[in-house]
């Protein structure tokens, strides 16, 4: 119909979605990729704990009380990292503890991200009183120190896995909400949003189908970083004794258990501490890689 047909562009015929490109960039970044693999190993450990753990993490044996790691005098290779004050195998407890850290980390971040994204989208796109209301709640919640807020909630609700998740979600949603609101404020001024309005798209369509896909990458990146925070918070709560209750193995309470013997039996606290460090560090490094991979500056 029209004579003015441009020659086809020199792009590959293969369909390259923007998300696929980001993943490819992530895979090309070796350092982050390695961190991602470490995180994956932790996740596998959590799921397959019974297969990984050499011993029953709950079996007490007072004869092995504070048994040192295998390479020290009195150590034993079937209890590689030694035993705690009740003679339980530390390695097995760390492996089972992964379940708690990752379950809570994932659950809190997932729930908080969903809530925060919806509220952030509403505040950023609808503006007006919705924005004012949500933003005020965010400001108020930001005024409380996170840990103290969680301790207070735990004190009211009592211990337990569900309650920890709730206590952390109560405040955690603020983070994705603020990020999403900011991103939406920028995205709503884009011409493609106006273009969608011009063809008669309703508000929900614009919020969830036009804007959300464009800010999803920042949401994912922030959520990953936050997962590391949440894992530390859970460990802190457990350390303080108001988190997961014994005898359930949790890294935080394991560190707390060893406090009394830190000079005589350093391994009781140190190994769970290293586990926390390793997981949190890997998550942080991997999320940095994700951020770089999603950064539109690197898009071609």
């Amino acid at each position: 119909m029209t004579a003015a047909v441009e020659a086809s562009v020199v792009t590959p015929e293969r369909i390259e979605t923007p998300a696929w490109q980001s993943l490819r960039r992530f895979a090309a970044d070796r350092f982050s990729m390695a961190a991602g693999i470490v995180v994956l190993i932790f996740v596998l450990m959590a799921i397959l704990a019974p297969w990984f753990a050499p011993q029953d993490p709950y079996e007490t044996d007072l004869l092995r009380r504070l048994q040192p790691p295998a390479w020290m005098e009195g150590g034993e290779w079937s209890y590689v990292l030694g035993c705690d004050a009740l003679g339980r195998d530390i390695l097995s407890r760390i492996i089972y503890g992964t379940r708690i850290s990752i379950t809570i980390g994932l659950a809190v971040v997932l729930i908080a991200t969903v809530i925060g994204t919806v509220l952030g989208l509403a505040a950023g796109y609808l503006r007006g009183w919705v924005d004012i209301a949500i933003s005020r709640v965010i400001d108020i919640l930001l005024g409380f120190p996170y840990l103290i807020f969680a301790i207070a909630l735990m004190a009211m609700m009592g211990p337990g896995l569900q309650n920890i998740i709730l206590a952390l979600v109560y405040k955690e949603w603020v983070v994705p909400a603020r990020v999403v609101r900011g991103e939406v404020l920028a995205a709503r001024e884009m011409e493609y949003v106006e273009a969608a309005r011009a063809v008669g798209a309703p508000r929900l369509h614009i919020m969830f189908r036009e804007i959300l896909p464009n800010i999803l990458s920042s949401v994912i990146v922030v959520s990953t970083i936050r997962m590391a925070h949440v894992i530390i918070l859970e460990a802190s709560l457990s350390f303080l004794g108001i988190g997961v209750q014994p005898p359930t193995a949790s890294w935080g309470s394991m560190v707390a258990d060893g406090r009394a013997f830190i000079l005589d039996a350093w391994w009781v606290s140190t190994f769970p501490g290293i586990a926390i460090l390793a997981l949190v560090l890997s998550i942080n490094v991997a999320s940095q890689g994700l951020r770089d991979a999603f950064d539109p500056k690197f898009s071609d």
Partner: protein
Amino acid sequence: MSVAQPHPLLEIRNLEKVYQLNSGLLQRIARQPPLSLRAVDKVTFSVKAGETLGLIGESGCGKSTLARTVLRLHEPTGGSITFDGTDITKLPQKDMTALRRRMQIIFQDPYASLNPRKSVEDIVGLPLALHGLAHRREIRDRVVAMLESVGLKTAHLGRFPHQFSGGQRQRIGIARALILNPSFVVCDEPVSALDVSVQAQIIALLESLKRELGLTYLFISHDIGVIGHVSDRIAVMYLGDIVEIGPARELLREPKHPYTKALLSAVPQIDAGAKRERVKLTGDLPSPLAPPPGCKFHTRCPFAVDRCRRQVPALRNVGSDRTAACHLVDAA
């Protein structure tokens, strides 16, 4: 000029778009005087069915705001918009959505106006899906047909905006605007982000689509060459006002308003001898937050007299089918 006067497809009366700035809670507490930005200031014009009305003006003159207000993408704060005999100024959004099938817009920036996360099929098919005009399979067929008529191929369906050149993206934007078979299309600087050779291709495309589909254009541009080429009539905007309207040919040959004269004489010409005597403007566009009293152009007008500083000139007839808002132009 026009023999059988076709009824205007779009009629704009005293249209106003005022943005209230400084009206936040803090400013109110601090007792700051509210500032109002009169982006579109009591504008009156009409677009006849089948014609192209060109709208020129410099950046910040309010031409893009005007375009968006006409389509009610921005809500007008005064005046009326009549589209095909219906007053749509206060139409509820639900009825407006139905009307959007008939009034569409092509955006300036082919990079920003396409959602980077959506495929061409989704972008061009969206209007059909939203208006429930076609089933899934049918949508693809119609998208393919539309792509072909803007010079793209079926193979492009699954691609994403970043895989196209600027000109091709603008074609996608055109396909999206035209797939609902609108009668009225606002072209908001559709070629100013493109290279000259691509510009010519897109202009040619827009013109051929107009002929084939019987479209009516409100064509906005700051490029007078482009406007002169595509328009039947031209409106000139300055600081939220329309200062002159007339048939393209006559207006360009013999501009009446001093601003139009200055604008035309500033366009660089490649033909030696085509150069008009320069009407030099001094100074810069005044802030639209505090427009000058009287004629808004008097601060830069080389011909301004005392009266211009006091009295706002009204648009009046200055020739057959021509109007201008200037005290110094003789009325016809």
